[in-house]
């Protein structure tokens, strides 16, 4: 049996297949030691699991809290400060009090060695033993837990980095080489990625080691930010690849669900407490190499998810010019929105409660009663300032939150040359159901899909994700040098396959995808193009789509080569059992732009497959509420999935 466990901020979710039925368990997360919740969830299984795919936030949290290892950063002499200089820009322009991102390496632990490789990969100053001895002496005096090495131009010639690693091996601590982590040009991005990896590797290895000791009878695999899993050893070595594995699980889940309903163009919408994640999928799950982790570039392939600071807990206020603002400050889960009873922050959740769209008695299946009177109180000061009624104020808050979220949708669609009208919205995560109709109206999206297992969707995505390993190498090839390119590709493919074989995986079952990072010679950004015979045409078409022009006469170059090896996931044949009803049908009142209207409250569990109904309606379930606006038709499809169509 295969099991997936996803560690989230509040809950740790476990999902598994039992005789074709998808089952889930939920336990509270244990932030101090996340493995406790994992083991607890796992112990609730009656059958023995053979394979466990795990999505963890250990790496991300260690970085955000700067609780990684004590590391040394070794580079070419003269460049010791690159992690502190970054791109020499400040994060905000019109702000005298701006701060740079919080560093995670101590200045005194950054060392420069006298060596140099030039821009063609030629050694012009060899790395001498006495240089290595110099740094060893310092490390002996002041030991560290992990080391990152990034020499200038090492992406073209890794020999100095490899030599140093060999000489450091007796220290028996992890050494991350930039030429292994990210053999691509741009030294700051490569150095930052390598240092993040070094910073997180000991933490991740320790955590995974513990899990593996306790779960010795299970094959443990770890989810990565590219949407696939790798072995425990590999995840320890490449800890930077485990960042964002939760959201990656969610996107993978949406992808699987979309396929199930025959959709290849979707936009995922995952609204949480503090932020909203959006990802556009056109045939394949997109990845980016420009991810930014709390101010530092992490340039490995990461599922391309755009995040904006608007969620259920986002706080509303009126500024001095008299405009209504929402977020990015959030009340989070603790103290949470005013209606949770601990704060008086007027949040988006409070606004939904005031509008009657969130029902105080059915939230979390009625186990946690929301305090509407606190929401009203929290909103009253805003209402007074705006001279609006409480309901109008609440409606305003929801509209502003929607516009902030719709900006994320624009980013991934319109700004990249996609028309949202051609896409289906897939909505999961706790808070999204309340906003999805109005967002789809704003973006003119015609269809929305909301899965029944929205509450544990990331774990669902993990369960069906494949083993996946990405390789990249900057090559600098002119696009017309086809022969050189094919040679490079063949060599690169071969070494990638043998690498995967060494991990104990079966490369025969793997498919190999090749991508080229291409640009017009002289540009500074590459477009990643799937390799095919007519790769130049494909590049130019994509360039036109994204930027609006083609420059036929201009030379094109291939900057970086990418190989992605992908195994096959478990067969995704699954069904969901009908659950017991938990709330009888009743009428409630909801406030809309037309004023208060009568709306039926429908228990999602009472719906049958094939059934249809028309909005306005509230469809409720333990972890989700869907506000179906007027002019939307709902169809209950396979596995109790809700499909909403704009009439």
């Amino acid at each position, binding site marked *: 049996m295969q099991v997936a466990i996803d560690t989230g901020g509040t809950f740790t979710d476990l999902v598994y297949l039992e005789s074709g039925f998808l089952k889930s368990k939920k336990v509270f997360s244990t932030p101090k030691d996340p493995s406790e919740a994992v083991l607890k969830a796992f112990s609730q299984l009656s059958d023995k699991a053979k394979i466990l795919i795990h999505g963890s936030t250990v790496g991300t949290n260690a970085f955000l809290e700067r609780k990684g290892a004590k590391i040394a950063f070794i580079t070419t002499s003269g460049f010791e400060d690159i992690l502190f200089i970054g791109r020499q820009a*400040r994060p905000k322009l019109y702000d005298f009090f701006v701060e740079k991102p919080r560093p995670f390496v101590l200045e005194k632990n950054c060392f420069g060695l006298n060596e140099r490789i030039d*821009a063609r990969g030629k050694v012009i100053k060899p790395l001498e033993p006495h240089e290595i001895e110099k740094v060893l002496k310092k490390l002996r005096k002041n030991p560290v837990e992990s080391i990152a090495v990034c020499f200038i131009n090492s992406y073209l010639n890794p020999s100095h980095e490899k030599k140093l690693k060999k000489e450091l091996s007796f220290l028996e601590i992890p050494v991350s080489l930039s030429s292994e982590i990210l053999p691509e040009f*741009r030294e700051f991005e490569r150095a930052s990625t390598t240092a993040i990896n070094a910073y997180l590797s000991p933490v991740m290895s320790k955590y995974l080691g513990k899990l593996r000791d306790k779960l010795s009878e299970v094959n443990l695999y770890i989810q990565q930010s590219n949407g696939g899993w790798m072995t425990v050893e590999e995840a320890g070595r490449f800890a930077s690849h485990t960042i964002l594995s939760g959201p990656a699980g969610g996107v993978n889940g949406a992808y699987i669900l979309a396929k199930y309903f025959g959709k290849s163009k979707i936009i995922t919408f995952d609204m949480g407490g503090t932020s909203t994640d959006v990802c556009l999928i056109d045939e394949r799950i997109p990845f980016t190499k420009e991810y930014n982790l709390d101010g530092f570039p992490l340039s490995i392939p990461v599922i391309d998810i755009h995040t904006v600071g608007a969620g259920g807990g986002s706080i509303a206020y009126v500024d001095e010019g008299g405009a209504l603002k929402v977020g990015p400050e959030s009340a989070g889960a603790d103290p949470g929105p005013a209606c949770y009873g601990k704060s008086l922050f007027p949040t988006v959740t409070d606004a939904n409660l005031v509008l009657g769209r969130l029902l105080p008695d059915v939230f979390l299946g009625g186990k946690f009663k929301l305090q509407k009177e606190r929401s009203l109180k929290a909103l009253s000061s805003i209402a007074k300032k705006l001279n609006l009624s409480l309901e109008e104020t609440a409606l305003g808050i929801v509209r502003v939150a929607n516009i902030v979220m719709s900006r994320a949708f624009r980013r991934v669609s319109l700004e990249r040359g996609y028309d949202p009208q051609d896409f289906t919205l897939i909505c999961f995560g706790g808070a999204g159901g309340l906003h999805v109709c109005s967002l789809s109206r704003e973006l003119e999206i015609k269809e929305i899909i909301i899965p029944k297992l929205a509450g544990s969707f990331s774990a669902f995505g993990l369960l069906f994700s494949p083993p996946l390993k990405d390789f990249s190498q900057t090559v600098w090839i002119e696009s017309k040098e086809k022969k050189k390119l094919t040679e490079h590709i063949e060599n690169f493919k071969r070494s990638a396959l043998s690498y995967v074989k060494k991990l104990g995986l079966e490369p025969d079952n793997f498919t190999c995808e090749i991508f080229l990072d291409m640009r017009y010679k002289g*540009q*500074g950004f590459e477009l990643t193009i799937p390799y095919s015979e007519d790769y130049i045409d494909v590049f130019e078409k994509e360039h036109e789509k994204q930027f609006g022009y083609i420059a036929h006469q201009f030379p094109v170059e291939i900057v970086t080569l990418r190989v992605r090896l992908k195994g096959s996931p478990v067969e995704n044949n699954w069904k969901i059992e009908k659950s017991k009803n938990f709330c009888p049908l009743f009428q409630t009142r909801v406030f809309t732009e037309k004023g208060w209207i009568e709306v039926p409250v429908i228990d999602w569990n009472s719906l049958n497959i094939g059934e249809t109904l028309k909005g306005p309606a509230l469809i409720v379930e333990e972890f989700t509420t869907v506000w179906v606006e007027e002019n939307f038709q709902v169809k209950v499809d396979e596995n109790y999935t809700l499909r909403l169509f704009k009439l």
Partner: protein
Amino acid sequence: MRAVELEIFNNLFSAIADEMGIVLRRSSFSPNIRERCDFSCAIFDEKGELVAQASHIPVHLGAMPETMKNILPLFKWDKGDVIITNDPFCGGTHLPDITLIKPVFYQNELIFFLIVRAHHADVGGKYAGSMAVTTHIEEEGILIRPTYLVKKGKIQESFLKDFINKLRNPYEREGDLKAQNASLLRGEKRLIEMCEKYGVSKLKEISEELKDYSQKAMEKLLEKAPSGEFSFVDYLDDDGFREKDIPIKVKIVFEKNKVTVDFSESAPQVKGCINATKAVTHSAVYYVFLSLLNTIGAYPVNEGCFRPIKIITKSGTVVSATYPSAVAAGNVETSQRIVDVLLGALSGAFPDLIPSASCGTMNNIAIGNENFAYYETIGGGMGARPGKDGLNGVHTHMTNTLNTPVEALEHEYPLRIERYALRKNSGGKGKYRGGDGLVREYLFLNSCSVTILSERRIHSPYGLFGGEPGKKGENILIRGKEKIYLPGKVNLQVREGDKIIIKTPGGGGWGKEE
């Protein structure tokens, strides 16, 4: 529901300006644009008033209203037109900043203008990079008086060919202009979609409201200042020729919710290229007040912010230069000094909000020969803030361009960077320390011509309230065993094997060290 609509439309407009920037940056060719983000995008209404802008480079953004004011009356605007100019004396900044302006029509009604300004790596002239120590605008590069790049949808091929063929890298210039034009087209498409969705009258109404909203916010800020007069003077090192210690003086008068900023007492324009145009001076003033505005909230930047601010400059001075003076460094160097002078004066009115002087120069270096032209700027130390140290090695105030990755630079040009590091202990001491400057060391693998335009090599960045000044910058040429100190502004020929070391100034400290 005005409060809600303000926020909604503010988001919609600024998303368009942002998107224009993304298109330009990702598809352009000049390292200045693509790697260093030396460009700006903005939306104006049919009256020529700023409606929205993306946060790009402050020195451009504040200057664009001046550009629009100058250019609007010059043309009979038609659908499908694009005007091109880099004329510093017509609301421009300096010659490398090429501006494209496009009117946006909806159902035959002119409703908006879009502007994209970008710093091109070369616009001709005597020296590669078009950023050199010169004395006449015509020496600095090609001056494009406002003219059609596209007329009624038709590219003016003869103009374009004629222009780009005079440049060192016509291919790159053409690519950048294509990217700029693509950005305008994207903006136009989005504005038309907005018109279709919300209607023209609604958009007009809401853009007026957005301006009033920002005006109200700016007035709130100005009300917080004590009424009265605040003055300050600081000096530019030199003009690259004989003129030294060139004063810039400001007198700021607060009156209720308005402010007057008067530069009349500043030095007359000079021979060298440090003359700032009026548009650049306006940018510096707007930058300072917008940063102060930021302390009371995040407001949209538009015409409304500028209404309560009156700026007085005397034509023919170093802060309001006239034709044919050289202006290449007015934009990059003098603009920084104008900010320093403004902050010095305002530290009397807003003692808790004003930082000490930052590095005060962009440390411009232009390198090239017959095969290439490359230009970059180097950050320095940020001035200490009340309650916080200054940041190390960062671009401050009027610029925020990124550095070019060393590996990108070495791949493309016959250069090697031997050192790129923080210049330790260059920040001024104080209760809060000024940030440290940077050191960048260039090794030349071929003979090249080099221009350095830098400041704060003679006058240090000042500290406030007892903080010590930051260290001055240094420019050094290493030729064989010789070490030659170069002046702040210099054109020179380097040979293969020569090295140039630029050490940038630290920021001033804040408060007495305890």
